[in-house]
């Protein structure tokens, strides 16, 4: 099952876990699968229209999915999905 690395900002939405396994043949399916187990999770990644938020990046392994097939990017068994929200802290 693909593994999703959860940034600290979103860990409260998945019970504090740093990574979670999730099922789905595409990224969108995987996100909704996680949302079914952790209600509200998808809302951090997706707009109400279902499109990807422009300030939250999602990587399939090391590739930004915006440059693949977006949320319809196929996901394989051993893939690692990383979520990177924009942060501004530097001081």
């Amino acid at each position: 099952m693909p593994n999703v690395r959860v940034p600290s900002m979103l860990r409260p939405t998945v019970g504090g876990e740093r990574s979670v396994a999730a099922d789905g043949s595409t990224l969108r399916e995987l996100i909704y699968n996680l949302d079914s187990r952790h209600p509200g999770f998808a809302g951090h990644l997706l707009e109400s229209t279902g499109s990807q938020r422009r300030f939250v990046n999602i990587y399939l392994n090391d590739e930004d999915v915006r440059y693949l097939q977006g949320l319809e990017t196929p996901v394989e068994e051993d893939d690692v999905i990383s979520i990177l929200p924009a942060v501004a802290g530097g001081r």
Partner: protein
Amino acid sequence: MTSTNGKTNGTVRGAALSLDQARRYARHIILPEVGSIGQRKLLASKVLLIGAGGLGSPAALYLAAAGVGTIGIVDYDVVDLSNLHRQIIHGHANIGRPKVDSVRERLADVNPDVEVVTFNEPISSANAMDIIKDFDVVVNGSDNFPTRYLVNDACYLLGKPLVDGTLFRFEGRANVYLPGKGCYRCLFPAPPPPGAVPSCAEAGVMGAMCGVIGTIQAVETVKLLLDLGDPLVNRLLLFDSLSMEFREVKIPRDPDCPLCGDNPTIHELIDYEAFCGAPVTTLG
């Protein structure tokens, strides 16, 4: 702008190193990749730090120690007790003083070869181009989205390399933007709505994280100045201190980027507070 020509020991830019300088930089000079020529190049270089805080502190200290000849600092904050667990350039005795004064004095002690140029003012669309234009590399240690987009855009428009870094709790990120090879807008096309992402003040940050990321920024800056190795271009370094893992993800240049894409629509600085929907409530 205030320029303090730190006691230069009679150094002339590009001139041969003095005996003291040969001793001071001996462990740089002995590196074949640096040598006397590289060290003189550093002494003739100008680096601007946006923010004298968590990231700016270690970056400024290491760049000064390395002999970067001119270091500019933009910050209009004063040193606060709550800064001191991570902003290691400032000391307890400097609480209440302008950060740029604290930085100037500390860097003069670290290395009198360094000229410190201070900008005790907010960086904005009105002054960013003037502040940045004379520097070779910009190091970003700001703490808010309007300043991040502003500095990104100004650096791209001026053709300046930007060494970026961010912190959040136990995590940090670092990368380098070279003009024409992607920019912050390629990474994050739009800022989050105001309040959607907590700041370090709201979320916290482990102090030593600043040392890791700020020092990586200093390393990348020296590499750029000396044209060494492979800079963190088109890739974002991710550091998770809890798992003690470094990873990388790719940052492609976005051909649709409004700033650096194939058909850009941004040709000058804009109103970044309006763009981000939030005022610059903290300093940059």
